[in-house]
């Protein structure tokens, strides 16, 4: 597991195993979700995988009424908007993800700060199956 490259492919493979993984810089200790193959903070080259708690809070969000084709295919439209946002993990890094468990038809700015827990959404059949990162209130 620790031999996996610090790439999107590896991050996605971890997601399919329902694990949210960060790349940690062995030099300065900075954490990166999504992973980075070299440290953008100290330019160090030694990285290591660490699993994060999957807990965080909502930093910014929106309810999308006109989504991209992939979300339309997933069943979302003007009458059934979905929520997406930026989540700040308890460990510090921020990540974009779909937000579940809040009412996308009645959004409120006051939802910012809501504690969230990681969730994994499976979409598509057979070879087209893919795990999407989400967070749930």
């Amino acid at each position, binding site marked *: 597991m620790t031999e996996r490259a610090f790439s999107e492919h590896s991050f996605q493979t971890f997601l399919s195993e329902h694990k949210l993984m960060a790349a940690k810089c062995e030099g300065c200790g900075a954490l990166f979700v999504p992973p980075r193959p070299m440290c953008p903070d100290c330019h160090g080259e030694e990285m290591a995988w660490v699993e994060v708690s999957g807990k965080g809070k909502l930093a*910014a969000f*929106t309810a999308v009424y*006109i989504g991209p084709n992939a979300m339309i295919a997933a069943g979302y439209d003007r009458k059934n908007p979905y929520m*997406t946002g*930026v989540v700040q993990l308890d460990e510090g890094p*921020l990540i974009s993800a779909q937000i579940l468990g809040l009412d996308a038809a009645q959004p409120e700015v006051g939802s910012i700060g809501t504690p969230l827990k990681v969730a994994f959404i499976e979409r598509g059949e057979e070879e087209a199956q893919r795990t999407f990162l989400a967070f749930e209130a």
Partner: protein
Amino acid sequence: MTKRKLGRGVAVVGAGMSKFGAFPEKTTRDLFVEAFKDMRASVDKGLDANDIEALYIGNYSSDLFERQGHTAPIMADWIGLTPRPATRVEDACASSGVALRQGLLAVASGAYDVVLVGGIEVMNKLPIAEVTEALATAGDMLYEIPAGFTFPGFYAAMATAYMHRYGATPEALMQVALKNHDNGALNEKAQFNSTIAAVMEGKRRSAEKKGRPIPTWANEMEFLHDDRANPMIAWPLRLFDCSPVTDGATAVLLVSEEIARQYTDDPITIIGSGQASDGALHDRPDLTSIGAAKKASQMAYEMAGVTANDIKVAEVHDCFTIAEIIATEDIGFFEPGKGHEAAEEGLTTRHGPKPINTSGGLKSKGHPVGASGAGQAVEIFKQMRGKAGERQVDRDVDLALTHNVGGTGQTAVVHIYERK
């Protein structure tokens, strides 16, 4: 950081644009020729096209929008300027703001005396869903778009973060749309060359004609709160919070300051330029401002040796209404968190102390993404020379600024102009 200076002075001596709008019968070539002719007509003492030594053309994605790559040499060819070097510049919606900077640096370096910069984009050839997909590629296709983000969605997320921190309301955003349409109504080149009041009237007349119930909006605010007239796109942003899908081209002529007076007795000098980059939205510690825009502004102000207080007029990147409010803070016109109050108090109207987007901005003038940055310089060239017609501000504009953003702020480029 060492204070940076340009190698020599560079002046804008001509600036023009095509009509912005939706033109199913036109390609980027047609629109660029239109922009070139408009620019040439603006050169007071005339321009021999053969004087031009190089071209820098901003273009986000003719590849996706028109299935045409390698566009810069085509533009050179269509205005008869081959074999001069022609370079395409791509930084999403900041493409031609960055093209302007590349042209500026090329002239300042001494490599050329006369450079044509500009931008091109034709977006209406694709169905709207495909336009959304094409624009999304300016975000992070690995980590942002799979989360369900769209461009309105990104700016909507910045809006919720901003509203949560500073108590801004959707009505403050609506004031930006109202103002920019008021300005665009006075710009014959604008895609939406009408006030929101006029849009309302048009909808009423259309309902009457079709024998439908005539809507009874008491005023523009009621119209803007109507889910049918102004549908939600990405909460809290509605249709009238978003810039349109636009076809258009822009052209700006840069020359070394030494020869500027061969072209005009009223040149506009570019005295400050700054550009910065950043990661995805989720890589930023502060979601209520655009760090790259603050950095680019700081660089431009330092180079120019002026401050935000000195600037009389600015064109800023209002791809969404919230973006204008954040921009007015990032360029230092207002303190962080005060931009929304300034918009509501009318401080940024043509008659206010800090006029913003007198052209109508991207919101009303239109946003042909790769052409928009150089388009801002076109308006500044007019305002500084007192040639903005009915929308001319009623004061001496000796210093002005343009602020152009790519994506959600992965690129930002700022220029400061002086009339001597």
